[in-house]
């Protein structure tokens, strides 16, 4: 969902424009270099730009909600033409979309940042990360899912920064939760769309950026399925709880009372959280725990 005109405060309009222009300038430099080497690169990126425009206004069926919505398209574009070129074409697509009141003229900077920069770079990063350890459709699909989620989380952050500067983290979470009923199914639709299309293109026309991946082992499949299931349960629980008046308190108090009743207030965990802030603190804990478990998994199983 793009931010419309009239929502962002002027200072944020110019801030997001400044950041996006930087990325667009870098993207244009790369595109110009490529055009010099291969002139046919120009219609190729324009064509992918048209695809991004069309699929981002093309409604596709979304399960759960029973309605239809549109994918972001930039993770798909970044896989084919690279993330910097994807930033440039997404800004142009957003400019055209302003004509149909999808987004706006003053919010092109902010929307380019969420859709073009966060969506394309996030999706591309995930694609590169999974490309060598998973089949092509999984890496492409995960790029679509991550790109879509990142786009909407960035949009939520932009709204929180501009509308509620006094309590950004709380409102970021709140806007993200507000997007969930439509955007979570949409992210899965984006997964399916990107996976299917990239697989189709790679099977019918070999493209330089798309390489076939490898098969997933049982461990990876189980881990991915667990991740998706747990995220869905948490998101649905939080969303159901919020209208019920839990005020997004989460499960902090339950965890504190049941899992760590004797936790010291001066302990390393509590101090880390106060220094980093909760989201970063939890991310750090997740990364450390995940790396440790993954690294020693085989050894732990063998011992058992």
């Amino acid at each position, binding site marked *: *969902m793009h931010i*419309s*005109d*009239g*929502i*962002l*405060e*002027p200072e944020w*309009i110019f801030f997001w424009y400044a950041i996006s222009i930087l990325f*667009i300038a870098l993207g*244009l430099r790369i*595109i*110009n270099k490529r*055009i010099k080497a291969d*002139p*046919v690169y*120009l*219609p*190729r*990126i*324009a*064509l992918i*730009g*048209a*695809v991004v*425009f*069309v*699929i981002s206004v093309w409604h*596709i*069926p979304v399960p759960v909600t029973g309605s239809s919505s549109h994918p972001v398209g930039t993770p798909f574009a970044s896989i084919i033409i690279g993330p910097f070129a994807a930033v*440039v*074409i997404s800004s*142009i*697509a957003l*400019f*055209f979309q*302003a*004509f*149909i*009141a999808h987004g*706006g*003229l*003053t919010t092109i900077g902010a929307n380019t940042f969420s859709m073009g920069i966060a969506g394309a770079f996030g999706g591309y990063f995930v694609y590169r990360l999974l490309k060598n350890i998973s089949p092509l459709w999984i890496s492409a699909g995960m790029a679509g899912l991550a790109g879509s989620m990142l786009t909407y989380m960035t949009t939520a952050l932009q*709204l929180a920064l501009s*509308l*509620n500067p006094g309590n950004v983290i709380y*409102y970021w979470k*709140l*806007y993200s939760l*507000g997007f969930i009923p439509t955007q979570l199914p949409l992210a899965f*639709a984006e997964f*399916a*769309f990107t996976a*299917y*299309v990239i*697989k*189709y*293109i790679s099977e*019918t*026309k070999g493209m330089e950026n798309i390489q076939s991946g490898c098969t997933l082992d049982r461990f990876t499949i189980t881990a991915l399925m667990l991740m998706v299931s747990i995220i869905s349960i948490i998101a649905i629980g939080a969303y159901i709880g919020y209208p019920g008046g839990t005020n997004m308190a989460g499960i902090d108090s339950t965890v504190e009372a049941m899992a760590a009743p004797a936790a010291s207030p001066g302990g390393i965990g509590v101090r880390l959280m106060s220094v980093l802030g909760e989201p970063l603190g939890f991310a750090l804990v997740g990364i450390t725990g995940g790396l440790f478990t993954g690294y020693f998994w085989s050894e732990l199983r063998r011992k058992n």
Partner: protein
Amino acid sequence: MLEWLTTDPLNGIIITITFFISVIIGRYLRMKRAAPGNKGKLVDPRIKILFLFILIISITLMKHWYFPTGITVICTLFALKSKIFQNFSRKMIFPVILAFFIVVIQGLTYGTNKINYGIPLYSEGLDSGFLIFARVIAAASMGILLLSNTPENEITETMRWYRVPGTMLDISSLMSRYIKAFSTEAKKMKWAQESRCGFSKRSGFSNKMHDVASITGALITRALVRAELVYRAMLSRGWKHDRSFVSHQPLDHNDLLMGFVFASGIMILLGIDRML
């Protein structure tokens, strides 16, 4: 009863003079517009874009909901008069949904003064939410009204005047052509697929996604080949990217005057909003 005549006459004189001069100017403008052979002058797209940008920024700076609401009402009346109301209202759906979402979130969470209408709402949140709602609707209606009667390629060429890099404009102009061709071709392929039992209501999500992907994939692969061939043909006929085919005329005095009037009007409106 007539004591108002005996007190300070300044206000009365001012209102009388301004009213009658405006009546004369209004009648003159109407007669000029209705004169035979007058097709009406379109606002230069360069002025339009600048005006729109300044107006939207000003709308976001407004502190009272009634000014943006007034702009929305004026735009809606224009849309009705220009017989584009259906298109106008269809395009307004998306901004209205987003604005409504913000009103709900702000009303439910922002502020300290609780009002109970069955569900707990905050008065500050509702105020701020409605202000944002009014701003979004005003900005969107202005944008739709101004951009709906300007062709995309005209605005793309206008961007060259604003010193937007040539590569970006070349991509834009190619994109705008491809978008039209793509949409038409996608529709045709979808109909063809539907006639062959594709997109069936009975088929599940996976099958529908497979149908969407096969159309998109086939379109992209075919279009890539075709676009490359056409572009090579364009190059062989001497076409060079980054070359402008439209030489912009300098802005004439009327356009500049109109831009000045627009900008002054916006500033006055913003000033009044801030003073209230």
